[in-house]
């Protein structure tokens, strides 16, 4: 059975991870490559580098970050934040990204989705959607959640899939940073509407939140940042928790055999 994916997000500014840098006992926790290597050892399924500066002059630092992370891990690597055109996507992919996440630019020029899908394949194109509840609908916000639009998240996800997106990265602005759990209603609405995988993001605070978003939210993958940064072995512990709750995940080899008798 296809496993539900656990994805770690590295929010990177000027070459350093901006969350989790104060965690004691972790040397250079702010270094993206060090953190990515640790997650890989713990069994993370995928890594997203989100460039939170995303200004033109900082692009070179981003390229170096992508290269450094790609050297450490042999896992799918996605890069997002400030990708405005084919040239930005090309720079990220040439540096070692397997996928690029496009958000504001996809909404402004939907033909970019098709162009990138044609050039690199749909599997390389993730359309990121930031949604917020408004009057009983899920409205899209752009520019890092700063600017509202009239677009409906479910409808846009459907269009993005039609245009060639390979996956949807769906963030709940209402839940982001709250640790109150993923927005399962939003996730299920989008996941049921599109034929492509949906990555849920925003709100992870406990391991049970992940169980909920896979069960009720129908998510194909779930993304989080700080929950992994602050505790060592969090990825392993989360996967064990999911496994014991009947959610299919990729367990580390040793752990799989240890659990095989009790669960399956």
């Amino acid at each position, binding site marked *: *059975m*296809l*496993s*539900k*994916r656990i994805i770690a997000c590295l929010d990177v500014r000027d070459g350093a991870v901006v969350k989790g840098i104060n965690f004691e006992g972790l040397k250079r926790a702010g270094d993206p490559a060090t953190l990515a290597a640790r997650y*890989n050892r713990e069994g993370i*399924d995928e890594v997203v580098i989100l460039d939170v500066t995303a200004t033109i002059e900082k692009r070179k630092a981003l390229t170096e970050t992508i290269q450094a992370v*790609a*050297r450490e*891990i*042999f*896992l*799918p690597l996605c890069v997002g934040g400030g990708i405005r055109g084919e040239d930005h996507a090309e720079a990220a*992919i*040439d*540096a*070692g990204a*397997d996928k690029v996440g496009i958000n504001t630019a996809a909404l402004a020029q939907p033909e970019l989705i098709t162009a990138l899908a044609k050039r*690199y*394949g*749909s*599997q*390389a194109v993730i359309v990121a959607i930031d949604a917020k509840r408004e009057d009983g609908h899920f409205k899209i916000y752009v520019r890092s959640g700063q600017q509202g639009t009239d677009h409906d998240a479910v409808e846009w996800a459907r269009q993005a899939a039609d245009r060639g997106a*390979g*996956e949807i990265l769906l963030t709940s602005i209402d839940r982001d940073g709250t640790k109150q759990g993923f927005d399962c209603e939003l996730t299920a609405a989008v*996941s*049921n509407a599109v*034929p*492509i*995988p949906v990555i849920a993001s925003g709100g992870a605070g406990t391991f049970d939140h992940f*169980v909920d978003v*896979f*069960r009720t939210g*129908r998510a*194909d*993958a779930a993304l989080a940042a700080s929950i992994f940064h602050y505790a060592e072995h969090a990825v392993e512990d989360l996967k064990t928790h999911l496994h014991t*709750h*009947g*959610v*299919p995940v*990729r367990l580390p*080899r040793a752990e*799989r055999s240890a659990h095989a008798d009790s669960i399956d």
Partner: protein
Amino acid sequence: MIALLDYGAGNLTSVRKALAHLGAPVTTPPSAAQLADASGLVVPGVGHFEVTATLGPDWRDAILSYVSSGRPLLGICVGMQWLFDGSAEAPGHPGLGLIPGTCQLLTNDPESTPTGTISGDTGTTRFKVPHVGWNALHRQGESWLLDGINEGDQVYFTHSYAAPLTDRCVGSTCYGTEFAAAVEYGPVGGVQFHPEKSSDVGLKILRNFLCRVP
């Protein structure tokens, strides 16, 4: 020398990086004639089966001649599908025909394999194509490519079409239906998944291939 075929089928950075990590730097031969010097050949590929048409008759001939000389080849994703007779994705473009069978679009056959239901789940989850993510390998007989790989070890997939189960299948995976995830034909191997993205399990499989290279 290991040749990595670059025919515009997506990005080769990660395959090149993984092989270099294992101490096997690769070259991308600019012409078919240069395959004559290769001791190992990797045919990668993501995206549409049609991209294989980029490789004209000179490449086909050079690859078939390379294979008939008994040297090892590893096809990845579309590169693996190309080993077959063809794919329903691009019926006008024949494959290399080294392994009989035609690749088909993944479909959901609930009777053969339940997908997407997890305990405590209510209702059914939509069957999604492409098949993206980590899934288990089921060993099918002896294999040099999957040597040291345990039953149930997971690897990373991203594809919509899949190869049929034949006696060349050495590893299968279930998604909607059961399909060939790894195939072998003498020193020719193929994997539907991405070993270069499959962490330690994937690196082990690439190492197994490199062990075949003199």
